[in-house]
């Protein structure tokens, strides 16, 4: 069975001329459905860049990407946008909710873009997702009236809106206190296991890394060690 997310030999340069930096130096990775992979490493080692490349937000200078075994390298911008909409859910350190919308409406935004569901079905699915992240009683709450932890949980529900195969999380708990961090991580891993999704997250939090199925240690744009967490 093909990996939910895979890449081979991914290279990425950032900057121009004398400030040009070789950020990713031939990274290869496979993430199976139902598994949680953590990327750890010092700031600036290329964790976020790898997530953006794998999430089709950025393009690599060399290497191959595939989602569910389907190659996605070299696609045009519009096609990449469609793949992101259908197959990938992002969770960022900052939730980036749209403050003009309620919690439920924020979750419905990716569904509206995809256009597969009618408005009633979208509302129902958004309500179910928010219920799953423990916000079933705050559907109509404006985004800016939610606490930081609640907003991040709305962002997780939004990332799951179109039932993506792959979840990419860039420091998803980096802006939360210990209690909320544990809660958000448990929520993410629970969803991944229950719904058979692949989760790749970048984190500085050693507890979260240890709770993952696989840890990739990154240094200077390369995985220097990839292994399950030590027992």
């Amino acid at each position: 069975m093909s990996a939910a997310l895979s890449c081979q030999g991914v290279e990425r340069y950032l900057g121009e001329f004398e400030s040009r930096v070789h950020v990713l130096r031939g990274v290869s990775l496979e993430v199976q459905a139902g598994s949680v992979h953590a990327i750890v490493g010092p700031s600036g080692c290329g964790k976020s860049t790898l997530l953006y490349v794998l999430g089709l937000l950025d393009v690599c200078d060399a290497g191959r990407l595939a989602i569910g075994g389907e190659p996605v390298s070299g696609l045009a911008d519009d096609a990449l946008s469609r793949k992101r909409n259908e197959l990938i859910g992002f969770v960022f350190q900052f939730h980036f909710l749209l403050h003009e919308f309620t919690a439920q409406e924020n979750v419905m935004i990716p569904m509206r873009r995809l256009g597969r569901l009618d408005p009633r079905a979208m509302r129902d699915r958004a309500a179910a997702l928010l219920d799953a992240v423990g916000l079933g009683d705050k559907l109509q709450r404006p985004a800016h009236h939610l606490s930081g932890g609640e907003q991040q949980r709305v962002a997780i529900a939004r990332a799951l809106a179109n039932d993506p195969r792959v979840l990419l999380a860039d420091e998803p708990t980096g802006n939360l206190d210990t209690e909320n961090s544990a809660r958000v991580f448990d929520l993410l891993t629970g969803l991944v296991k229950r719904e058979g999704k692949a989760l790749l997250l970048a984190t500085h939090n050693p507890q979260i890394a240890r709770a993952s199925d696989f840890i990739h240690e990154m240094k200077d744009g390369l995985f220097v060690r990839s292994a399950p967490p030590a027992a």
Partner: protein
Amino acid sequence: MPSPLYIALRFINHRKKAILLSLAGVILGVAFFICTQAQTQGFERFYIRTVLGTTGAIVVQDRFQPQFTGVLQTNETTVVSVSNPRRRKYQDGITNPEEVMRVIREFSNVAACAPVLEANTTIETDFRNAVFVLQGIDLDAELAATDLRGYMVGGDLGDFRQKASGLLLGAILAGDLHAQVGDKVTLTGPAGERRDFEVCGIFRTGDNLIDEKRGYIHLRAAQGLFDKPSEVSFIVVRLRNPDRAPALAAHLERLLQHRARSWQEREKGNLQIFRAIRLSAAITVSTIIVLAGFGIFNILTLMVLEKVREIAILRSMGFRRADISAIFLWQGLLIAGIGSAAGCGLGALLTWGVSRIPIRMRGFFATDHFIVYWSWHHYLAAIAIAFTGIFLASWFPARRAARLAPVAILRGSGQ
């Protein structure tokens, strides 16, 4: 509903105060544009109606002097042409008016035509003497070809019809002469012929040049007074479609070998003034829409700067560049749409209100209230200007939003 429109509506709703000011600018710009165009074109149309009502769509007048081209054949292979290089000359008047009018009436666009014999004449009343332009008319033909009946402000056309020595005087001229209906006056033709006439009616066209200098008598009486028993000075032609006057005038000129002048040619100078005023009003009022456009440009540009994170997250959710651009273009289009609709309503209301304003105007034409011309073209032009201006105002911020690189924003946000 497309997702960009859905988001645009919500963004607008959260910027109500800022947007309302620009929206008010669009509404006022559209409304003032419609109202000023209705006024300027209203006066222009009224002036044209006065021109057509007094002197017809086409005036057929002097005959061309025939030009001859001599041809000499010197031998079997050589032909020499000798032509007169002098400029075309005219011979005053029309010597065969019935024949010319018969030909004119053949054209389907011609509604009526009337012969007129005109000469400067001296009028003597008990009060004073004056020189004026006296026109001899065939009353029935004149009534069919002009709006004379509508211009009568005193006396009776029936009385004039009955009296061979009846006279109609322009209102200002009658006032200057202290002449009233029923008064006897003496007219002296250009050749010195004197005859007595009775004032049967007073008319007012609104055009001072006519009202202070013109009078009418019967054509037959004029031919006697002017000693021109069979000719006329010109023929007034009324058309069903006056807009086609220039083409028909040119055709009549070639066909009849008489000078034929359309109302557009005769009034070219005045019409240009009206058009310049209309254009000037349109440009001036459009600046309100342009200013509103600048306001919208500022609002949307600020919004793009404020929403860079939201734009990045929307891109991460699968929104294309075109979708991001559409969010901002939709906002512009919504403002343009609401502004145009409300502006058209307000413009119609203002136009109606202006048409009720009393104003006494005499000289160019006569009116006792503001004249407006209702035309959907004014509304269409106002909407086109509003949409073009606001589209441009929203296009630049929209393009800027679409070009934002989500990765750069997300990286910056994380630091």
